């Protein structure tokens, strides 16, 4: 393992640690002045700043470490920050925390303290916290933490003298201990008692890191313990196995409980302790009784009104109906009639499946406005911090279908693009969860363009949207429940720290929307042209007619007109291309309300598009992806057939 670069051996070291954006660098500059060195940590591209400061006549070396969230590292930056703590002779570790967010910051303070590091806590950004109406009882926090605590606003040079004084008078012998629940303590002790070597970190902290499978610590312990290591590892494995369901969750919740105890009566709000509106809205959004109505409001205004009615109705109506069909397409055709004498080229450019009359129209006039409005709504929700709350809200429901709140990430991303969401399923903890999420994405999560077109088409037919939504929800839950019952495997718990709810920034929303639209357009445009060329070639060679002939009996069994076969063939190229085909069918007046609903349900459930299938193959392998493909196709057509029978028998939507 590499060792940190030190500018001067023998000089006591002050190491600044903390989350990103808490003011570490400002404090570092204030302590060290102008003479600092920035160098890469050996073997990495991570920069560490070094400098010196003089306190009470003594010279200290000061290190500004990269931002870290936990002593259990995930990024290279966190790994480097921990290396410095693990291997350096540290006189004092200054943990800089944000006064506005003490509950999120203190778990790391706890980890640093339990690691036995000589700790001084700087509660920074006090000015902003006071502006928010917060009062922090620093002496009370200090007495509870058992380490020196200094309040500061380093950007305003407030508290710098107190920090210098605390550093100069620092007593490294103070080592507080915080107790976890007795069962967890028992397991920590089982492991810690078997550690016999000499370590810089406290044995309790090492035991916790070993139980969380920290590879670097495993290597360090293996090298230090020698022959004794096998027995130790056996104990670690035993505890991990016994607690395989909830170890990480228990550790996180225990730390949260301890921090809440430490902070009780430390932080008070000026407004008589009443939580702010943002805090109340945050808790409403996670409580099932208030969270579900809030979610329905979000879906109604965000998806139905904005994407469905405005994007897919008003904007598409203008771009597709007025601009393309009334002006551009007749002009393209007139120009082609005049200048292009070869019929094959005429057909390729402005024919039934022409690049200009079909591919460009679908991409620019149909899909882009829908995904554009969808991405605006998506970016507003994303920037407000609603999605992590949604994860907490649906956690219980998702557990019933073999997933947990973490699966909200791929599911939410799936409404943007299922291909990308399929890749994100790799962030789920177990193979079982990944397979279930992949099935549900392929089956029941429509992508943004498909969703927008379907919302626009179905909202014009009373009851059709309700049938489509209820049916898809039913399929999602039934298949999820069945998958959870039939597939063996563990069910990991879900826990995440919730970032603050915030007012979306128009600049952020605009930039994220434009970025997503640009990416989406660059992706779909060439594919739409390729699809258009393939359909043209199929028409020219007669291959398309053969394909349509194969699909026609299926269409008839679903009660759909034979012309619907083309939309299903389009849908295999891309989901949004298929939805656009459905849009053309409906605007041509070829579908009754029942047929429209059956076609929309079947097309939504229908096989994943080529790109999503390739991603499934990449993530899950040929065998699983082919099985999912066959399963999804069968479910889609069986559901369409069943729904058609049900609607005809009951007379709903007739």
């Amino acid at each position: 393992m590499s060792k940190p670069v030190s500018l001067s051996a023998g000089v006591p070291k002050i190491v600044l640690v903390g989350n990103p954006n808490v003011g570490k660098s400002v404090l570092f500059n204030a302590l060290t002045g102008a003479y600092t060195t920035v160098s890469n940590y050996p073997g990495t591209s991570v920069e560490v700043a070094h400098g010196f400061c003089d306190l009470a006549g003594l010279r200290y070396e000061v290190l500004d470490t990269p931002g870290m969230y936990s002593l259990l590292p995930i990024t290279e930056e966190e790994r480097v920050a921990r290396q410095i703590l693990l291997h350096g002779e540290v006189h004092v570790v200054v943990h800089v925390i944000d006064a506005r967010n003490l509950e999120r910051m203190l778990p790391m303070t706890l980890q640093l303290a339990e690691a036995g590091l000589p700790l001084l806590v700087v509660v920074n950004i006090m000015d902003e916290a006071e502006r928010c109406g917060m009062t922090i009882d620093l002496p009370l926090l200090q007495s509870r933490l058992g380490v020196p605590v200094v309040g500061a606003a380093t950007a305003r040079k407030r508290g710098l003298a107190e920090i210098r004084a605390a550093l100069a008078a620092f007593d490294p012998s103070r080592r507080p201990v915080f107790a976890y629940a007795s069962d967890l303590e028992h397991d920590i002790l089982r492991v810690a008692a078997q550690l016999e070597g000499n370590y810089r970190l406290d044995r309790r902290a090492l035991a916790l890191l070993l139980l969380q499978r920290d590879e670097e610590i495993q290597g360090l312990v293996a090298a230090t313990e020698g022959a004794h290591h096998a027995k130790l590892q056996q104990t670690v494995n035993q505890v991990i196995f016994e607690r395989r369901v909830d170890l990480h969750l228990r550790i996180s919740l225990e730390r949260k409980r301890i921090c809440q105890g430490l902070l009780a009566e430390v932080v008070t709000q000026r407004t008589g302790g009443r939580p702010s509106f943002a805090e109340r809205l945050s808790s409403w959004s996670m409580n099932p009784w208030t969270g579900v109505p809030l979610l329905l409001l979000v879906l109604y205004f965000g998806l139905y009104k904005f994407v469905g009615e405005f994007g897919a109705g008003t904007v598409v109506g203008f771009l597709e109906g007025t601009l393309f069909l009334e002006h551009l397409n007749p002009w393209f055709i007139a120009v082609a009639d005049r200048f292009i004498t070869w019929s094959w080229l005429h057909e390729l450019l402005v024919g039934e499946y022409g690049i200009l009359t079909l591919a460009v129209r679908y991409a620019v006039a149909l899909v882009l406005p829908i995904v554009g409005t969808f991405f605006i709504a998506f970016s507003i929700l994303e920037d407000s911090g609603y999605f992590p709350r949604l994860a907490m809200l649906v956690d219980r429901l998702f557990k019933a279908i073999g997933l947990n709140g973490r699966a909200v990430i791929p599911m939410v991303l799936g409404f943007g693009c299922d291909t990308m969401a399929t890749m994100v399923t790799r962030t789920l903890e177990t193979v079982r969860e990944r397979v279930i999420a992949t099935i549900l994405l392929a089956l029941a999560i429509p992508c943004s363009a498909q969703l927008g077109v379907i919302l626009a088409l179905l909202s014009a037919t009373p009851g059709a949207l309700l049938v489509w939504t209820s049916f898809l929800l039913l399929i999602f839950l039934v298949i999820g429940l069945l998958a959870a019952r039939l597939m063996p495997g563990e069910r990991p718990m879900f826990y995440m720290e919730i970032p603050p709810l915030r007012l979306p920034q128009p600049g952020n929303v605009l930039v994220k929307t434009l970025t997503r639209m640009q990416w989406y357009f660059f992706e779909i445009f060439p594919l739409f042209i390729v699809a258009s060329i393939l359909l043209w070639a199929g028409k020219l060679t007669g291959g398309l007619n053969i394909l349509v002939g194969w699909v026609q009996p299926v269409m008839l069994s679903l009660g759909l007109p034979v012309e619907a076969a083309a939309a299903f063939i389009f849908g295999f190229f891309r989901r949004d291309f298929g939805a656009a085909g459905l849009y053309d069918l409906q605007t041509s007046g070829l579908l009754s309300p029942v047929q429209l609903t059956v076609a929309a349900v079947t097309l939504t459930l229908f096989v994943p598009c080529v790109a999503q299938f390739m991603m499934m193959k990449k993530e899950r392998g040929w065998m699983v992806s082919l099985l999912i493909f066959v399963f999804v196709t069968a479910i889609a057509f069986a559901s369409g057939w069943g729904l058609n029978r049900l609607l005809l028998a009951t007379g709903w939507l007739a």
Partner: protein
Amino acid sequence: MTCSFCGREIPDQPGRAEPCGSCLGGCRKVHCPWCGYANPLLPDYLKRLQQPHKKKE
């Protein structure tokens, strides 16, 4: 860059600003190392629009 899902700061590293190549069709995403959320990788010309809102340490 801050993760739009978990709110954590995604460190700038050489290579991280490049697409990972896993998405078909050339997606431009930065995956959060903590939660896995796919954050859009902002083009330089759009980043300028965000500058006034950027927090400085």
